[in-house]
Every structure is written in C-alpha cells, then in structure tokens.
C-alpha cells in the first residue's frame, strides 16, 4: 500500500467525523456535565442558584421519604408496564408473524405506525375514553349498565400503566418481531415432525429463541417508561408524580433547578446502570442464540 493512500485513510475518517464530534462534545457532553455540576449547587427562594459545591440536594433526596416513594412509584410503573407489554406484545408478534403476506404487512403498519404519532395525541385518546364522568367509554359502559360509577383511570397508577403500555407496545412487538425473523421458517415443522404438539413447540422451541427479543424489548420499554414524561403528566397530573414530572416541576414551577438536576442525574445514572447491566446479562445468558 502506498504511503499517500495510507495517510489519507488515517486522516480522512477524522476529518469527516470532526464536525459531528465537535457538535456532540460542545452541545451534548458539556451540557450533561453542567447538569451534574448543577446538582451540587445551592438554591434558595430569594438568592436563586449559588455556584458552590454542597451535597444538600443529594442529602435531601436520600433522607426525605417523599423522593424514595416517588422513585419507587416510577420504577413500579415501569416494571408493570414492561410486564404488560411483554405478556401481550410477544404473543401478538407471534400471531402477526404467522399471518399471510398482505395481512401481515397491514397489521404491522397498524401496530407499529403509532410509534411515530405524537405521544400527546395518543395519551389524549385515553383521557377522552376514561376521563371521569365525561369519558366516552365510561359513559357508554354506564349507559349499558355494566358499571355504576366511572372506572377510576385518570390520576391512578393503573391508568398510567395502561396508557404507557399502549404507548410502548410497538417497541415490544417490534423487538419480538425481529427475533422471530431470525427463526428458521422450517423450525416448527422440524419440531412437529419429531412429534411435538403446538404447546410443546411454543414452550420448548419458540419461547427460548425469542426470549432475547422479549428481554431486549423489555429493556427498551422499561427505560422509556421510567423516564416517560407526557403520559404520566397527562394521566397522573400534579397528584401522581414520577421522576420526570417531578424534575419538570422543580425546573419550571418551583424553580429549584439544582434539586431538579439531582433528580434527573439520579434517574439517568439508575437507568444507565440497569440498562447496561441487564444488556450484559442477556448477552452472557443467550450467547448461543445470538451470533
């Protein structure tokens, strides 16, 4: 290889990526670092933000049970949402995969399309259906005599979980779907020819193979649910706060930025730990199914 070409191939990639790299360092890494620093600053109602290094905010989060409860609620909702999407999304992906060509792509579009539709619009739908006495589904069910009082949905954790599961469902279906695509199309026939019935095929052949897909879908859904803002804000309102809505309030209502930054930093750190940890675990556990 000529030295000119060699030199080019060392310099060229850096020259090409330099603008993007500078953008990311300048307006992503620096702001993130500033946020972490902010969480160590002091704040007072009248004095505003004081750029000193203290642990006040972190102490407050560690000692005040209000924060423990709020984080516990955040993760509880995220876990339940994840379970719900896995329990419903995985079978649906499997059913979808067995449909014939045209129906398959149609329903795939119907189920995955909402991924790109505004979360506000999607959550609004749930509020319209179950929003107290005026909720359309509530009204319908009451007039049919199925229920006597409106189903409690708004400002409840159940409501948040259902609406979040609806928002997150496409991620789970997509992830399981991708795992199903990697399956040998003859694998079910192979199992059947060896004498396996439908239940055995699903339990012994399909499930173990799509499990990595379910788990990686679960990680996505979990981390998105734990940091979700729009849905908890619309369904939970001011009464039922999660980490993201709390940070929002601290920033834009209370104006206690350092405390909000501490909440956000903690959320980010917890999520990174959970996501990286479980990714590593899955990869180790399913080494032979991957690759």
């Amino acid at each position, binding site marked *: 290889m000529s030295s000119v070409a060699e030199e080019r191939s060392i310099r060229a990639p850096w020259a090409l990526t330099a603008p993007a790299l500078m953008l990311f360092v300048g307006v992503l890494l620096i702001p993130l670092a500033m946020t972490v620093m902010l969480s160590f600053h002091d704040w007072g109602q009248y004095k505003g933000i004081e750029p000193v290094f203290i642990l006040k905010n972190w102490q407050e989060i560690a000692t005040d049970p209000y924060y423990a409860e709020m984080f516990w609620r955040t993760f509880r909702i995220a876990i339940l949402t994840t379970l719900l999407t896995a329990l419903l999304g995985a079978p649906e992906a499997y059913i979808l995969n067995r449909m014939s060509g045209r129906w398959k792509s149609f329903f795939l579009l119907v189920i995955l399309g909402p991924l790109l539709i505004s979360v506000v619009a999607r959550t609004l739908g749930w509020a319209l259906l179950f929003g107290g006495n005026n909720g359309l589904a509530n009204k319908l069910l009451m007039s049919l005599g199925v229920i006597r009082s409106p189903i409690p949905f708004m400002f409840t954790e159940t409501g948040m979980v259902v609406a979040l599961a609806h928002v997150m469902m496409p991620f789970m279906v997509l992830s399981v779907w991708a795992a199903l695509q990697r399956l*040998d199309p*003859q694998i079910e*026939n192979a*199992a059947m*020819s060896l*004498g396996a019935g439908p239940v055995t095929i699903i339990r012994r052949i399909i499930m173990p*193979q799509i499990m990595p897909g379910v788990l990686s879908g679960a990680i996505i859904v979990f981390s998105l649910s734990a940091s979700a803002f729009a849905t908890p804000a619309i369904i939970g309102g001011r009464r039922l706060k999660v980490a993201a809505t709390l940070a929002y309030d601290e920033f834009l209502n209370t104006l206690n930025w350092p405390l909000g930054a501490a909440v956000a930093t903690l959320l980010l750190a917890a999520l990174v730990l959970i996501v990286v940890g479980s990714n590593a675990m899955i990869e180790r556990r399913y080494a032979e199914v991957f*690759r």
Partner: protein
Amino acid sequence: MAHLELDRVAKQFGAQTVVDDFSLAVGKGEFISFLGPSGCGKTTTLQMIAGFLDPTRGAIRLEGKDLTAIHPARRGLGIVFQSYALFPHMTAAENVAFGLEMRSVPRSERAERVRAALAMVGLAGYEQRHPRRMSGGQQQRVALARALVIKPSVLLLDEPLSNLDAKLREEMQIELRQIQRTIGTTTILVTHDQNEAMSLSDRIVVMSQGRIEQIGTPQDTYERPASAFVSQFLGKTNDFAATIDRTAMPARLVAGSWSAPAPAGLSGPVTVSIRPERIGFGDAGLGAKIVTRIFQGNHWLFQCASECGPAIVIRQNDGQAQPAEGEGVRLAWRAEDMSVRGGAAS
C-alpha cells in the same frame, strides 16, 4: 404392497397447479430421488408426504393406511430440512434427544440412543456443542442423526447437501448412502443435482413443472430417457434431427451422411439422442468439423459443427492422438447407444 404410495396426488396454490397427477410406489428400504429443476414441485411433494401441506387431490398411503388423515406430529417420518432447522438453543445431544423425549423414551435409553446416533454420523464427542458452533457439514450430520434416531418409517431429505461445498458434498453422499444401506430405512431425497441423484438412488423420479417425466433406475433414465426433457436434464446430450427413409429397403434412419437401419414403428421426422461419450471418430458417419478442443484431464471435450448442427463429443484420454481444431471428422455411434423419439429435434 408398496411401502409408501402416492396415488395421483395434486397440489394447487390458488389457481396455480404446482404438482399434478403424481403417482409413485416406493418399496421398503428403497432409496428414491426426486430430481428436477428449481420450482418443479419437489419440495411441495415432499411436504405433502410430511404432512406440512395437504394435497388438493389424490391419496398418500403408508403400509396401506391413509397418511393424510394423520397429524404430521404422529406420522413418524424423519425429515432433514434444506436449512437443517436445528434448534439453535439446544446442544447437538439435546437436538437429537428431542424426538425421543416427545415419544417419552426413558431417560437412560434416550441417552444411549442419542450417543449411538451421533456416533453413527461420526459426531461422537460433539454432544455438548451448540449448532452455531458447528460447521455446515457437522450441522447436517446432527440433522440426519436427529431424523434417524426416532427410527422413522420413511426418511425425507430436502436438498440436504446443497449448502455444502463440492468436496464435502461428495463425502456426505457416500456416507449417506452407507448409513441408509446399513439401517435400511426407506428414503426419499429431493435434489436438483443429477450426479447426486445418480450416485445415491435405486430409482430416480425426474420431474418437470409439477409432473413426473420418468421413473427409473439411474442407468435407465440416463441411457433411455423417456423425453427430450429428461435427456437434456441428465447430463449433456446431442439431439440430431433425422428422418426415416421408407423408400430404401429395408427402411433406413438418416441424419446427414450418417445412416442406420430404421427402428420399427416410426416414420417422418424423428430425433436421435446420443450421449457425447458414446460418439466416436470414424471413417464414415455424420460429417463434422472440430470447432474447439478442450483438455479436461481424464478426458477431451470437442465442440463440433456437424451437418445436423452443433455436437459435443467426449473422448477418454487414453494417450492416443486426438483430432486438432479445424480438422474434419466423421461422427459415428452404435445403434444401441442412441434413443430415437418421434417428432423433430427442438
């Protein structure tokens, strides 16, 4: 009574008929190949026997019993898929054991049979490997062991060797043949490789566009092809347009300056089919000029321009001098080596 019998089986997908009027009787222990070009319905036929597809018409019987009424899981057939369809999350041993588990074979017997099956395909010591960590040939053997360990009444193989490289494929062909001979399982092999079909099977079913063209031993189908399709598909062949000259007494079969006594029962334009290795250079016969001469180690390949169009001649490399390019030659062959069909050569 035939072991496995297909009786006028047909399969339609919508309006498209993919397999039609397929009748075949397979004897116990026989090795049958389905041979035909891509898309001719080989897999479809095999899948109907396996039960993954239902025939539109016709019957499939095993030991005289109607197979179509039996769920594929209970047909007890062994199948090796083109992609092998091994269970990637199970080890080789677990893959092979699966069918036995489904049959509730006791654990100790199961272990012994798995070990024996893997040993038979030459994979002793590979029990704990996962399929992804095995080579194509090894995976293929696991698939074979998995199909054989359940002692199937019929073994169905869908292009099991097509994913292997040429050398490995040859080795596996020999091995497959040996295993089948030892255990004597009735076997149906789908392939589009004529050499594979020839070297493995007792009988070949040549298919084209969903129909059977010919059923016969490898030698039969090669030397006495029932149709132009078969002669073209099984190796190289020369088709010469010829005529029956009834004015001569006795009548003669004439192609250019070559002629021979006419076979009975034919008249008008006919086609003479002759394999390239059965043609010799002689003093009399079809006039031709050598266009190219290619040396291929153990034989020579000649492409000639003859009075009746292009011709191919193959001569053993026996050390004798061979005609050069551009040289005029006469092509001759024995009457029993050719086959004559009615109708003009296409």
